[in-house]
């Protein structure tokens, strides 16, 4: 295959990868996006084979390794439980990083095969590119390993910080640069190997101080790194597919981690620099370390949009925030999308008898959508989303289980039986009865920390 033709195909596979990412940015097109990605990969691999063109016995080995790796990958993909997704992605990243390092090593050892000059006399630009690729790849590898271990729970999820960590990282980073500089000057193996070794170390040190809660951001960041590594190698190999894809992955990963930080209301730099993670986890420790899943209005909107039925459970917080109009509007939006909406009013929700009724009537909620507890409690089990807005005690299952609790014996709304539970409140603080609500820590609960009105209004925006 001519170099031109393969370049064109590489371009096509790059475009397919762009379309893949584009597809993934909205639920409707996401599956098609994944297919584009697969197609792009297929083209890239095939073209590489064809452009090398010498189907020597080596080809068989390539196939063997390819299939071996493929089966392992497929096996993992099918066996892994959905809940282990984050660590899986982290683990996969480490592989990409290592692969990049290997390719760089291979190129360093046998530059001739890559048209980069002779061993010991590699083109300067190629040498720089390859070193960058190798270093970034190594950082990605070791960083991802740590992320994996933390997420898997093998390593403590809490951030491990030590004094002067930033200085050490800086120092190591400088060392890498110096090593690359000497490598370029001498082309001596030892510089190359030590550079890689130090990069591994940097990866470890970068991720260790970051707390478990920030891991998703870290993974996305590592993703970005692996992209830059691929781009670096792409420049070495003069391969357009690698350059396009690497840049694509690199920048999209970086942006994604930025977006995620914004969504979590965290500063990007404090996450990446890791040191600040400490403050955060200290708070978590107070809460006896129970992890809480918290989301934003977009998550809530997404969950509800894809539900077929939603039960809204209003409580005193809705009254305080005067969110009733917004809630009504949210319900209208949902109904427009064909989603069934009902309101479950607990007999003692609020602070006076009939408190919720007053507010719902004010917001013109039709009476026939408002149900008292007895009539709706069985419906939760068949409901996709329970949207609990400013209510707390009236949903607390401790009333059923703990005779010591002050609300023991009070009938409660069985919101936890619905597929997903959304709690809109400003914090984890308790309600009137002053007791903690264990629902907050459940797996199918998503906390939406905000003023009830603001959050609901934002959800409405995201529903539209």
């Amino acid at each position, binding site marked *: 295959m001519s170099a031109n033709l393969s370049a064109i195909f590489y371009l096509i596979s790059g475009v397919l990868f762009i379309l893949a990412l584009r597809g993934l940015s909205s639920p409707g097109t996401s599956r098609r996006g994944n297919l584009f990605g697969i197609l792009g990969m297929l083209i890239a691999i095939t073209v590489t084979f064809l452009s090398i063109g010498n189907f020597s016995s080596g080809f068989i080995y390539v196939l063997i390794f390819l299939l071996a790796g493929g089966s392992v990958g497929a096996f993992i993909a099918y066996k892994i439980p959905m809940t282990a997704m984050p660590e899986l992605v982290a683990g996969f990243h480490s592989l990409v990083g290592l692969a990049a390092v290997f390719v760089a090593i291979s190129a360093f050892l046998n530059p001739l095969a890559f048209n980069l000059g002779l061993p010991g006399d590699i083109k300067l630009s190629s040498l720089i590119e390859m070193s960058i690729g190798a270093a970034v790849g190594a950082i990605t590898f070791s960083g991802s390993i740590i992320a994996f271990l933390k997420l898997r729970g093998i390593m403590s999820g809490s951030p491990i910080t030590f004094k002067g960590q930033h200085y050490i990282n800086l120092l190591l980073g400088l060392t890498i640069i110096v090593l690359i500089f000497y490598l370029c000057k001498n082309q001596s193996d030892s510089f190359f190997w030590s550079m890689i070794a130090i990069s591994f170390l940097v990866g470890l040190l970068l991720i260790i101080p970051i707390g478990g809660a920030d891991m998703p951001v870290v993974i996305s960041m590592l993703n970005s790194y692996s992209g830059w590594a691929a781009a670096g190698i792409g420049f070495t190999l003069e391969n357009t597919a690698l350059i396009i894809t690497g840049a694509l992955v690199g920048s999209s990963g970086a942006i994604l981690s930025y977006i995620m930080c914004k969504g979590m209301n965290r500063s990007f730099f404090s996450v990446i620099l890791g040191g600040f993670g400490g403050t955060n986890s200290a708070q978590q420790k107070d809460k006896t370390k129970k992890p809480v899943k918290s989301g934003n209005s977009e998550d809530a909107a997404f969950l509800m949009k894809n539900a077929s039925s939603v039960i809204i459970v209003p409580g005193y917080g809705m009254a305080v925030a005067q969110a009733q109009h917004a809630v009504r509007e949210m319900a209208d939006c949902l109904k427009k999308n064909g989603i069934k909406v009902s309101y479950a009013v607990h*007999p003692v*929700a609020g602070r006076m*008898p009939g408190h919720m009724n007053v507010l719902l009537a004010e917001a013109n909620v039709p*009476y026939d959508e408002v149900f008292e507890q007895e009539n709706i409690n069985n419906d939760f089990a068949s409901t996709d989303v329970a949207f609990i807005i400013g209510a707390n005690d009236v949903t607390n299952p401790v009333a059923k289980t703990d005779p010591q609790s002050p609300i023991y014996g009070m009938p409660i709304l069985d919101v936890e039986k619905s597929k997903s539970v959304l709690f809109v409140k400003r914090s984890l603080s308790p309600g009137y009865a002053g007791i903690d609500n264990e629902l907050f820590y459940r797996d199918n609960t998503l906390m939406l920390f905000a003023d009830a009105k603001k959050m609901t209004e934002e959800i409405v925006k995201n529903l539209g």
Partner: protein
Amino acid sequence: MKIIGSVKEDLAAEKRISVTPDVVKKYKDLDFSIYLEKNYGNHLGIRDEEYKDNGASLVNSSKEVLEKSEIVLRVNCLSNDQANLIKNQSILIGQFDDFSNKEIINKLIKKDIKIFSLNSLPRITRAQSMDVLSSQANLAGYRAVIESVEAFEKAVPMMMTAAGTITPAKVLVIGAGVAGLQAIATAKRLGGIVSATDVRIIAKEQVESLGGKFLSVEGAENLETKEGYAKEADESFKKKQTDLLKNAVKKNDIIICTALIPGKKAPRIISEDMVKSMKPGSIIYDLAVGQGGNSAFSEADKVNLVNGVKVMGVKNILNNLPLTASNLYAKNLFNFVYNLYDKKKKSIFLNEEDEIVSKTLITKEL
């Protein structure tokens, strides 16, 4: 024609007044002099001083007022005595009823008095600010609901409480004119489940614009006249309406009746059977009782208990809301006088070409 006067009404039957301190000021701005009988607004808590402060003169007897005034403002018709005292060729403005006030009106016409009855005001846009029927009916609708709710032995709004759920009361409004619409609004406010019915199809949109449910009589033609009032319905319509209402009445807790065809006896809409089909404790408030009533068993100024259903009706519901009603009524009158007032000549001028003048003026003996 610059002297305006008003005497006290028969307090037994009428608590509203035609002149409030506020409008006195407005009349003064146009250079009118105002004469009022003393203690004019006392029964409403308005002291004579308030009138005086705004520039009115308070005189001791109604006689003096009537003899001085060139324009006399009233709520109801004058008494026979008063009719004797009123100055010839003066102007009398108020709400007069062709039937019950026939004799007095004839007497006044003989005295060459220009009688304007605001009851005959054309329902045109320009006359809206003088439309006493509207302003008073509006309040009547509000008040009817308040009184019904007061008489009702249950709570109206839905309340889900620890001691069980209180179901919301169902309110049915018959006739969605001015009074009916305000009744709908008020009942909705209180948290009732409100439905309404009317013969005019356009009322559907209006009822819904207040959040009420409209009960349409199937296949109803539009029974609206050009002037925006209702026409009398034919038999087939009445039959259909009866069937519809039979069901609805049974289910409702409070019924407010406001159906009316101008100049006709009020249509009888709720039959005796219907009343009896209601739950004990239910309320029927018949605003049309003055025109003969929309409901069986309704009698003016009485509460009849029929099988536990309270059928109520007040002849002059505005007596129960006299302050607000007087405020609006007095403003209506002022706007009417202002329309008669020639801004250039700075005096009263009866422009017979003005629809408002010609339609309200009673010129011939009845």
